[in-house]
């Protein structure tokens, strides 16, 4: 029984992390209908920033996530300004391909500059700390990351639903031209959305450094899982992303333990297909 609870908890915590990684992608996708293929690489860049801050300036990830978030916000905004805004709306797949080029650039630039070495911060505040309840062990870094994720998702949700900015974003998502006519500077909204999307994944990357090694390939699988989560939750839906992420985390953990670890992603992808067959626009799709 305690094993079952442990497996569920691990899945839940992994899912909460995935939610934070995917939330930004969901936002961008929902509002702009653009696939940001470089999403996983944004995560990697954030992790490198947080690693170097920790390694050179001894700033703990528990603090440096602010810097990572801000940095990737700027990176996202620049990506929109110089890449996405120039090819959006011209041909269906152009932004996807352009961001694919960006992801290749970022990955190999980091490889070239920082070498392909695996880097991990040695002494962080949270490292190795855990809460032990009987047979159940909860890693503190994972727990803190999970709680952060919930807080940030909530803030994002609040921003979207309760503020003027959020309404403007929603209006732009529904009909860009109409929003433009209503006096919304939709170009600026897009810029902001891309930045916000980047900030979410940046924060996730900043926190991840406290327990995961950084290397140029680290973003690949996270990026892929984020795609699934977004499509499964419904493009643009933040509660959808959270629900899908937790579902994926749980399925991954349960299938990994009760079927076989090699099948954990097979189970995740198969579940995605099953869900999408029943609800073709995702769990919370509109």
């Amino acid at each position, binding site marked *: 029984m305690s094993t079952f609870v442990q497996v569920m908890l691990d*899945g839940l915590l992994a899912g909460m992390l995935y939610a934070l990684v995917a939330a930004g992608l969901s936002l961008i996708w929902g509002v702009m209908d653009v696939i940001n293929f470089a999403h996983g690489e944004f995560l990697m860049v954030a992790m490198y920033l947080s690693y170097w801050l920790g390694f050179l300036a001894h700033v703990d990830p528990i603090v440096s996530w602010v810097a990572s978030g801000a940095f990737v916000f700027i990176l996202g905004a620049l990506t929109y300004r110089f890449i996405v805004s120039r090819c959006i709306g011209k041909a269906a797949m152009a932004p996807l391909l352009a961001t694919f080029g960006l992801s290749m650039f970022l990955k190999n630039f980091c490889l070239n500059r920082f070498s*392909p070495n*695996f880097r991990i911060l040695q002494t962080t505040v949270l490292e190795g700390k855990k809460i032990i309840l009987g047979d159940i062990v909860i890693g503190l870094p994972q727990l803190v990351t999970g709680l952060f994720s919930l807080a940030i998702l909530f803030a994002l949700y609040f921003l979207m639903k309760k503020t003027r900015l959020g309404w403007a974003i929603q209006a732009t998502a529904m009909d860009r031209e109409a929003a433009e006519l209503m006096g919304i500077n939709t170009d600026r909204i897009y810029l902001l959305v891309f930045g916000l999307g980047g900030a979410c994944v940046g924060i996730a990357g900043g926190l991840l450094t406290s327990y995961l*090694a950084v290397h140029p390939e680290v973003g*690949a*699988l996270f990026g892929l*899982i984020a795609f699934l989560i977004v499509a499964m939750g419904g493009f643009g839906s933040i509660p959808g992303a959270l629900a899908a992420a937790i579902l994926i985390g749980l399925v991954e*953990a349960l299938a990994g333990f009760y079927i076989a670890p*090699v099948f954990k992603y097979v189970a995740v992808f198969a579940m995605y297909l099953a869900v999408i067959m029943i609800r073709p626009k995702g769990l919370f799709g509109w």
Partner: protein
Amino acid sequence: MQNRKFLAVVTLLVFALVLSASCALAAEKVLKIGVLFPLTGPCATAGQRCVAAVETAAEVINNKHPELDVPLAKQEGILKGTKIQLVVADTQGKPDVAKSEAERLVNQEGVYTIIGSYNSSASKPASAVTERSKKLFMCGCSSSAALTDRDFKYFYRLAPTDKTESHEFVEYIGWLNKNQKAGIKTIGLIYENTEFGKHAADEGKAAAKAAGFEVVVDVPFNPGATNLNSEVQTLKAKNPDVVFGACLGGDYTLWVRTMKQMNWLPKAVLNYCTGYQDPKITQQLGADGNFFMGGTGYSPEIGAKYMKKVAAVEKIYTKKVGVPFDSDSIQEAVALFILAQAIEKAGTLDVEKVAEVLRTTTFDSPLSLGGKVAFGPGGQNMKATSIITQLHDGKYMPVYPTSYAEIKAIVPMTPWDKR
């Protein structure tokens, strides 16, 4: 019109790429050797170190190094002044790229030999190319035993295979049971599900079963994982006495840290040539990496004791990459040394004659553990040895075979909460 300009720029870029092809100037009396490793992709760290090791060997061979006591150091080049020129190429860790780059090296660059290619899955098609065009392939550290089961004539491999390592692991467990009353009965495996990991695990299972141990759990996982929770949880639930591990790079750190987080350890862990041997990773894991064990062909500690001549050569290498040799990279340096020695002995560049020398000679090799290299059937180095070490505060301490042992291994490993 902007588009015309843009088109012109792109065309220029493309032409620049193509033109840079032809500017490699050939000096007099050089012997081109292809160096084919994964320089990008998931195995890039290891690949880049291997290249640095080959470069180190080439530097020693090409220049006068009276201070070094290794073969060919005191003279300049081989065959009375022929210098070795390396042509580096990237496999990206992919078999198809390895194959086409091997072809380019052979047909276009006209290399004499290829040294490569770290990943067994890349070495296989690349060496099929050299075999077909009757060129030598010197393989340093690809560990799949299948490579030397193919009866190739021009393929030579230096490192011990995962088969040899598996037998040594099982032998050592038997020894532990007898001499340290370890009481080990069950074995578990965790490995990345790739050509390398799967092959190592298959050999490990076969060896364990042959020696009468029970394999209770078998956990392959996909490399580059976001977490290894279910993998470690599965190990923990079956609780084997010993775990054989084949996890590379970042997965290795993740695995060790996940075990720590889940507060579980087997009595002993034995690693194939993996993240365990990477000095950088060991350093980063700090105290968490302690008491893990693994097969090791070289470490500075072993070198200081049994391979005294390495240290001076190692200085050149460390200048390039900032870490000492590891078991994998040093084999690639050996590969070039042995090739050069064989050519020198044959006195000619005739491939058949050099291959004959390789097959029949026992070479002096100060960079190999045991000091000798001799190739057996299929091109496997019969003198390849690896010893089992245990990690103590960043130092690889030999524990087995007993003739090399420095310390008595700590088995069972100290649990996490007592550290």
